[in-house]
């Protein structure tokens, strides 16, 4: 359960005592409460669930793990296992 999507924090403000961010999701923007991510800064990516940021995306960790995933994609291709092997029952 858990529709949460990553967005970029464009602006941070305090609105009535609540730390609020204007978060961009691919061109649309929505306000999100940043109280759970006090370390979030403008320019960071946060994961937003029902209007609340629940974590800051770790850029380095993302890059590190993604590089490994990419290499699997390349490897798969080299081994010729990427040919369209659709499984139809």
């Amino acid at each position, binding site marked *: 359960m858990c529709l949460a999507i990553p967005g970029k924090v464009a602006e941070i403000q305090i609105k009535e005592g609540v730390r609020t961010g204007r978060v961009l999701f691919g061109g649309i923007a929505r306000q999100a409460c940043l109280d759970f991510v006090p370390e979030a800064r403008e320019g960071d990516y946060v994961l937003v669930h029902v209007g609340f940021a629940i*974590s800051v995306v770790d850029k380095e960790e993302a890059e590190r793990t993604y590089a490994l995933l990419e290499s699997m994609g390349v490897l798969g291709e080299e081994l010729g296992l990427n040919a369209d092997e659709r499984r139809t029952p």
Partner: protein
Amino acid sequence: MKYMDEYRDAKIARGIAAEIRRRSTRPWVLMEICGGQTHTLMRYGIDELLGKSVELVHGPGCPVCVTPLEMIDRANALARRPDVTLLSYGDMLRVPGSEMDLFHVKAEGGDVRIVYSPTDAVELARNNPDRHVVFFAIGFETTAPAHAMAVLQAERLGLKNFSLLVSHVLVPPAIRMLLQSSRNRVQGFIAPGHVCTIVGVGEYEELAREFHVPIVVGGFEPVDLLEAIRLLVVQLEEGRTEVENSYSRTVLYGGNRAAQDAVERVFEVTDRKWRGVGEIGSSGLRLQEKYAAFDAERLFGLQDVRAEEPSECISAEVLLGHKKPTDCPAFGTRCTPEKPLGAPMVSTEGACAAYHQYRRHLVTL
């Protein structure tokens, strides 16, 4: 969209799938817990990519589906009151209670509205002091912090016309129940990544240790899920039963402390009924006594609204992974998304609905 599109890359997905097929020596039975993960698996046809290397069964991770019958009845009762505005997440509106769903209550004149965030609910209560605004607060651990904040905000604003109808459930007790069953076939779990973003990984380590099953914390994009499956297969092939975190770009070992604090301030653990499954001890949350003024059940005396769950229902079998939606004799015929017989067919995250919407053309028995 950054941190999303890259995890839908077809080449990487096919590469990981190929690697899974290469490593797997038998059809390991794996379960993803969260409804959002089920949705992705069905939408991208991951089962098709994996063929016989893995058997995917779907877990009870759809809070909409597991909301007990009597809770829907309580929501309906509230919505029927002329002084109440009932706010809810969209997908709850079509879940049938003992007699009807919230859409039908709306048709009969109930003030039922959809909101995206509990903050919207607080705002609405603030702007409409002559209405009592009840927010139908359902969800797993992921959403509890947001609901807690809504209560704290309402308290700060001194609102007297705002309350929550709480139906929160917790994931680990359900997994424990599943693992304790003698009929359990699941050999590895994909833990729900956004739940773990809040609560961390510790509870899953306990489960892995106690029941000797590998558990991998997984995300929600197809590449994330494939990678989680791959790590599970590798563990199973090597005979390991550890917890790994493949969603480390957002999940920290200790979770989100600030979010956990909010929940601990406002909620406490309680027993909860799961629709189609029955009562699971200490598997839910309720508002603490000191927040009784924001508890719709207490304010409106709803504790006595009860409903009997039907004693035989394949929903339970599907939710616990014993059966597939397509094993149900009513699937696609007497039970469809527009005439759902049970909860997993109602929400788009329910296993039955996901199968029906995306995969029924490949049904063979």
